């Protein structure tokens, strides 16, 4: 029964959350945090951080991220295809072959434009 399965999974999730919540409560009941200077400052190799870490940050792999976002969609089509693959035989192989070739062209284009280099 699919519905029971989802309920079991939901119950598992709730159990884990409840367990973690119990641990948090236990921890909270076990003592207080003593305030000391520079205790609540994030680690930064010896020196105190001058400014917050939440600033503009150049993520060097954004090209890969874009490529991945598009390439990732292939699996939405691939899983249902894989289920019926044996049944349909050669037709399915050719269909998916064409589809993957099209996607692979995109990968090759990005490769040729230097998108797969270390930035």
């Amino acid at each position: 029964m699919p519905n029971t399965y989802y309920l079991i999974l939901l119950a598992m999730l709730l159990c884990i959350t409840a367990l973690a919540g119990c641990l948090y409560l236990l921890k909270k009941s076990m003592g207080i945090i003593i305030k000391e200077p520079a205790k609540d400052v994030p680690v930064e190799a010896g020196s105190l951080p001058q400014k917050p870490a939440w600033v503009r940050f150049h993520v060097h792999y954004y090209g890969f991220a874009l490529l991945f976002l598009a390439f990732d969609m292939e699996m939405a089509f691939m899983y249902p295809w894989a289920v019926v693959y044996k049944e349909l035989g050669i037709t399915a192989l050719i269909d998916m072959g064409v589809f993957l070739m099209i996607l692979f062209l995109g990968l090759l284009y990005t490769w040729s434009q230097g998108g797969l280099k270390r930035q």
Partner: protein
Amino acid sequence: MNMERIIFLLLFGSTAIWFAWRVFMTKSMIRSALSLLASMVAIGILFLVMQAEFLGVLHIMMMATEMTIMAIFMMMFMMDPGGMGDMDMSHQKKYSSVFAFLSGASYAAAILFTQWPITADAVPAPAQQNHDLGIELMQRSMMIFETAGVSILVAMIAATATALSFNSVNK
């Protein structure tokens, strides 16, 4: 009427709406991207409640990467992605809320005044659904599937051509 299903629909529907609302109400960019993720996960769970198992799990999975990548682009573009300053990022609030209310209300009116032809057909079991979706993909919707492939290719080429800097390539 299925009481259990109604309860879960209302529960996860309100979760989805709450997190969707938080997306535009928080100052922190990463929080808004991950609220959108939470909203999308709630939508995926609604799919599961409506027994579209493959679509639900797929949606939950895809959105995790998509929204986190959205978060890194936020990091790259914004001066203050943590929302620690007090910067207002919205404009024309009044018009947009009026327009949003109008569009939502007309949508809701269209829903309420339509006579929906509910069927009594039983939903196929999930394993059967996966199989049927595969058959649909390979036979009737084959051209749509290949077209989707071509549009993914176009998007990849467009993104590569616009986003990557060519200074290093052309020398």
